[in-house]
């Protein structure tokens, strides 16, 4: 190819890629679903760690299961809607490996725990919702960044990395429950 046609071919290819990334959308109701699941998961985890009753542990487990189910449904809907799988969506948006999402969940768990110890349950609810909202905002930020630079932000963490992170989080939670 000559340089003129090289430039045209490259420009055409990158335009096609960028237009494709622009066309990627989140499923309808995604924000409410994932934000709600995170809020419930934070609240039930705090309850499980602070309330000394068998039902509290069931609540904790229920919150985790609910998040897992919602995450799986969102991944399925995203793929069905767009006809593509995007690693960055799975890890950064759904499983919250983006710095903002991880920080939001961590801070809301610690703050929620502190509020629950003081029996400020209205504050636990408020903190849980705030955690869910921050998680959603983080996901929206990823989508914006992905649409600007799809090749850079499309890739997410590997399935092995995600499995390890989830395994460590669950193990940490089990240890916390055993230490109650």
């Amino acid at each position, binding site marked *: 190819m000559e340089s003129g046609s*090289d430039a045209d*071919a*490259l420009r055409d*290819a990158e335009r*096609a*890629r960028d237009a*494709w990334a622009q066309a990627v959308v989140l499923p309808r109701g995604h924000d409410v679903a994932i934000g709600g699941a995170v809020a419930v998961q934070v609240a039930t985890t705090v309850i499980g760690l602070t309330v000394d009753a068998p039902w509290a542990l069931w609540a904790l487990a229920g919150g985790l299961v609910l998040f897992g189910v919602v995450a799986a449904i969102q991944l399925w809907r995203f*793929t069905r809607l767009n006809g*593509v*799988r995007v690693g960055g969506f799975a890890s950064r948006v759904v499983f919250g490996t983006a710095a903002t999402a991880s920080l939001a969940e961590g801070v809301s768990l610690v703050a929620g725990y502190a509020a629950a110890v003081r029996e400020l349950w209205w504050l636990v609810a408020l903190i849980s919702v705030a955690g869910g909202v921050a998680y959603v905002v983080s996901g929206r930020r990823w989508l914006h960044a992905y649409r600007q630079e799809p090749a850079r932000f499309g890739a997410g963490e590997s399935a092995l990395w995600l499995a390890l992170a989830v395994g460590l989080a669950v193990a940490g939670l089990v240890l916390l429950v055993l230490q109650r």
Partner: protein
Amino acid sequence: MTDLDPHLQAPARLKLVTMLTAVSEAEFAVLRDRLEVSDSVLSKHLAALGEAGYVRVRKGVHLGRRTTWVSLTTTGRTAVGDHVAVLRALIADVP
């Protein structure tokens, strides 16, 4: 300077692999529609890129029907990056 990759020199093939850099995996039909080519043309490109080890093609199920998923391999992703870098250098050298 490294040479241009002969597997990626055709504009349609460059477009195909560049689009695949944006996703982990794409459904064959979605890719075909986006590229505005026929099934046979896309299959031909995928076969050539598959032989070079640049793409992976697997059968799956989508919306309850059998479908084909296409993704770039690690080798393919590296090859696209190198090819684009050489292209940019060539373009920049033109007065």
